[in-house]
């Protein structure tokens, strides 16, 4: 075999173009005859939609069209967007219209498109467009949404409840009845945004000669988008192509199908001109989906030794105005709570409610950060009440490696029993604690306190279901140039998908990384595809790349052996050549083999030879792949200002076999940064009428370079036995336990004041308020 690619710290193939300013994001594309679109959007959280005075702006110079719901083609003019993840628990499967009809139910909901010669003109016209609204009472808080007699988010629905379900196993009442201790917590996690640096973007162009519609969209899921769009336009799937070119970050909100992805193609078809829409950041705050609003009332039952007997409670999940992505986040949250611990009995009742806010769909973590925050807050509570070290309580309750595979007792979101395939949770925690210097910390803490500094340490464990199906495909094809074409429905928003898939294929086929010609995120390149979410691409596309690569390798060897006149076992593949020690010549290049594999016109292929050197594999995982890890956060809190500085951050992470440590470490580090934002900064504020108040980066704070330390990252590899690569997902594990570890560390730093926190984000104002309430300042100023 040639150079070892799999497992190596390979620098990324994506980088040179992006560093030279030669990336190709949607707004960088130039298409002749391009027109520009701007959306008129509801300024009300809830209102009856009256008439739209399209004529007033339709004649403005440079305006080409004002398009309202009535002007859209069948069936999108009357049918809402499809429910992409149906679930029988959803009693009100409400999704939005491409352009609103009758009623608007969140600020920013699109009501009309203005298409103009330039973006400036389109924006001027959209602002000038007179739309009549009759405001209705809005639901601004999901707790108020379930109270009797309050306003309803949709006036034709009798209730704000979209769905309710129970996740349960074991004798929960018995567990609590016999418990030595029961502790209750009320926990809240706040919504935030994905906040990819590139906003959403759509460009649609219809070619009359071939009647083909091409749509470039900054999406994580072009194959899903193409299918939905074809349905909404009533077009054959084969006449629609969707391409996700370079995409500037995803983080979940770009996984769903948005109204704009249907409206812009409809406008292009109607006008016979290419049309582009680039979301501005304010629109992103208003209209890109968000996540995490959940209120939990939970209790844990433990015995006198701190062993868990059961966990029960209820959870309220804010789905916003619609349920575009089904029950994914509340369902994942409900089933992630038990985590790495033996929880003999469990019951959680979840209620999913409508509010008049932008819908919620997965944001990096997708329900898991909330569940982990809940469980880890409970574990810290048990430790505090029973006066154990927080690590010891966890140690006593870990699922042991010899219990793998471990059946939790729930059904996961993939429809399969929640069975952890592999993992060594005690080792993960010990690795993280050793790296963090946990044992020496108490001494440091005392020394800091003597100097009047409040430092603290927090830990959090998690198990994450990753690598969800149904499948992802990879085509590998040897080209007449000698290069190797690879195509996949997997997409790239910064994860390095091109590099990791290239490593896997190059390893199998025996070529250089730079000789792989990769096409990702293009429905024209591979028939079936799913896309990026649920940390699924390494498992799904990676496994397909391996299988397709192995198959093409066998094809190359079989053909080369015949051409060179040697046994197949005498052939080695390296650097794009089939090499043989003996035979009629020393080697033959892939290009020559690719031409031979085309055969001769009219002549039958030799027995056993397939057409071309090519294979497409669609790997279908049998269930989720469960990654795990431990985070340790060390913080300093300024008691006077409530300011928090993260001094040190340590991660032990088990993502199975690591394809590229450079990329996995980058995913973990970036994920932690997102978790730091959720823990300390990101606050999407709405007023009581569900009017968003934080619609710029000056008001909604993202973590900066001074807020995020460089993490110490250790890999604890337990091989996943269920997929051929032995891998698990790595995209979200950095985010998931971070708020739990950070809030625990803040609480620890302030332990002498006995303040407790059960919410995110924990802002300086909240810390100061809690300290004031606890009488901390009287204590501080005495003496």
């Amino acid at each position: 075999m040639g150079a070892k690619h799999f497992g190596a710290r390979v620098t990324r193939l994506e980088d040179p173009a992006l560093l030279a300013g030669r990336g190709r994001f949607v707004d960088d594309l130039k298409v002749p005859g391009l027109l520009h679109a701007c959306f008129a959007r509801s300024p009300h959280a809830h209102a009856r939609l009256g008439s739209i005075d399209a004529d007033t702006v339709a004649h403005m110079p440079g305006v080409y069209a004002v398009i309202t719901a009535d002007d859209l083609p069948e069936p999108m003019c009357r049918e809402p967007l499809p429910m992409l993840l149906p679930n029988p628990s959803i009693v009100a499967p409400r999704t939005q219209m491409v352009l609103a009809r009758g009623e608007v139910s969140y600020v920013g909901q699109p009501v009309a498109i203005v298409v103009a010669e330039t973006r400036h003109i389109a924006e001027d016209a959209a602002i000038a467009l007179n739309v009549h609204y009759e405001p209705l009472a809005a639901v601004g808080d999901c707790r108020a949404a379930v109270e009797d007699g309050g306003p309803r988010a949709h006036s034709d629905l009798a209730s704000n409840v979209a769905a309710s379900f129970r996740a349960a196993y074991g004798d929960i009442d018995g567990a609590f009845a016999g418990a030595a201790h029961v502790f209750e917590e009320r926990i809240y996690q706040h919504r935030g945004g994905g906040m990819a640096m590139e906003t959403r973007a759509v460009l649609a162009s219809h070619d009359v000669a071939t009647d083909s519609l091409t749509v470039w969209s900054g999406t994580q899921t072009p194959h899903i988008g193409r299918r939905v769009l074809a349905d909404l336009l009533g077009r054959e799937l084969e006449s629609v192509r969707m391409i996700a070119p370079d995409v500037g970050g995803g983080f979940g909100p770009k996984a769903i199908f948005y109204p704009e992805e249907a409206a812009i193609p409809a406008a292009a078809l109607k006008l016979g001109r290419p049309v582009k829409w680039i979301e501005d950041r304010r629109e992103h705050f208003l209209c890109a989906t968000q996540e995490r609003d959940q209120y939990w009332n939970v209790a844990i039952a433990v015995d006198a030794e701190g062993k868990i007997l059961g966990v029960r409670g209820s959870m309220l999940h804010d789905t916003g105005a619609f349920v575009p992505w089904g029950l994914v986040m509340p369902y994942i949250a409900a089933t992630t709570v038990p985590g790495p611990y033996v929880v003999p009995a469990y019951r959680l009742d979840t209620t999913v409610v409508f509010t008049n806010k932008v819908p919620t769909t997965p944001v990096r973590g997708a329900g898991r950060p909330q569940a982990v925050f809940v469980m880890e807050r409970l574990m810290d509570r048990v430790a505090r009440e029973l006066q154990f070290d927080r690590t010891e309580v966890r140690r006593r309750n870990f699922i042991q490696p010899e219990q793998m595979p471990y059946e939790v007792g729930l059904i996961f979101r993939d429809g399969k029993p929640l069975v952890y395939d592999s993992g060594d949770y005690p080792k993960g925690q010990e690795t993280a604690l050793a790296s963090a210097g946990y044992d020496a910390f108490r001494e440091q803490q005392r020394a800091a306190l003597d100097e009047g500094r409040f430092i603290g340490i927090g830990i959090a464990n998690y198990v994450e279901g990753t690598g969800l199906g149904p499948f992802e495909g990879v085509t590998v094809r040897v080209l007449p140039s000698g290069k190797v074409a690879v195509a996949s429905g997997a997409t790239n928003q910064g994860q390095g998908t091109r590099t990791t898939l290239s490593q896997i294929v190059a390893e199998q086929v025996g070529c250089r990384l730079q000789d792989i010609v990769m096409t990702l995120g293009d429905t024209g390149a591979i028939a079936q595809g799913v896309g990026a979410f649920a940390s699924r691409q390494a498992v799904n596309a990676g496994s397909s790349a391996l299988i397709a690569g192995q198959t093409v390798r066998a094809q190359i060897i079989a053909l080369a052996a015949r051409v060179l006149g040697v046994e197949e076992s005498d052939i080695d593949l390296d650097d794009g050549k089939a090499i043989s020690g003996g035979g009629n010549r020393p080697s033959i290049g892939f290009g020559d083999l690719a031409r031979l594999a085309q055969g001769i016109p009219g002549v039958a292929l030799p027995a056993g030879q397939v057409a071309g050197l090519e294979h497409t594999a669609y790997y279908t995982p049998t269930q989720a792949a469960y990654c795990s890890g431990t985070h340790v956060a060390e913080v300093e809190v300024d008691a006077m200002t409530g300011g928090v500085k993260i001094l040190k951050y340590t991660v032990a992470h088990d993502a199975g076999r690591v394809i590229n440590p450079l990329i996995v470490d980058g995913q973990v580090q970036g994920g932690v940064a997102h978790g730091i934002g959720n823990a300390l900064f990101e606050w999407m504020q709405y007023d009581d009428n569900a009017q968003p108040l934080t619609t710029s980066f000056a008001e909604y704070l993202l973590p900066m370079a001074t807020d995020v330390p460089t993490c110490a990252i250790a890999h604890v590899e337990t091989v996943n036995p269920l997929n051929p690569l032995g891998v698990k997902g790595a995209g979200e594990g950095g985010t998931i336990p971070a708020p739990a570890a950070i809030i625990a560390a803040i609480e620890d730093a302030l332990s002498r004041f006995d303040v407790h926190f059960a919410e995110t984000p924990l802002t300086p104002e909240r810390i100061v308020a809690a300290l004031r309430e606890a009488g901390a300042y009287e204590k501080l100023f005495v003496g």
Partner: protein
Amino acid sequence: MGKRATRVNVNGKSYARVVEPRLTLADFLRHELNLTGTHLGCEHGVCGACTVLVDGRSTRSCLMFAVQANGAEVTTVEGLSPEGTLSVLQQAFIDNHGLQCGFCTPGMLITLTELLRETPDPSEQEVREALTGNLCRCTGYAGIVAAALDASKRLRDGGS
């Protein structure tokens, strides 16, 4: 409002255009000159993706009008190295995994180019403070900071 003539030297080449006064420098670079390496992440001066050098100083091109750049020397990401080559800083970004999606990257490169010119041997804290005007959602900044420190060392060691 009537259009105005503006002449801007970008990456060593002079461009004369007649533009609307409200056209930002960022849109001018991207759509008039087709230099699409400069990105727009917020258009309100916080994210820093659109940072370019104007007469040598890092500047938010989303907060400046093209007509204000009349007569100025502008450097964009496309001008950091001759075509087909990478600067020491750009190479350090590859080696230290300083980018993921690459959208904030042009602004990061410009900010750090200015920093390394003015502070050839910055501390990690100085690098981090210089980067507070540039948001990245992917990397958690570790690779960017490492790249800046690596590039600083290579440049001081005589790298080119």
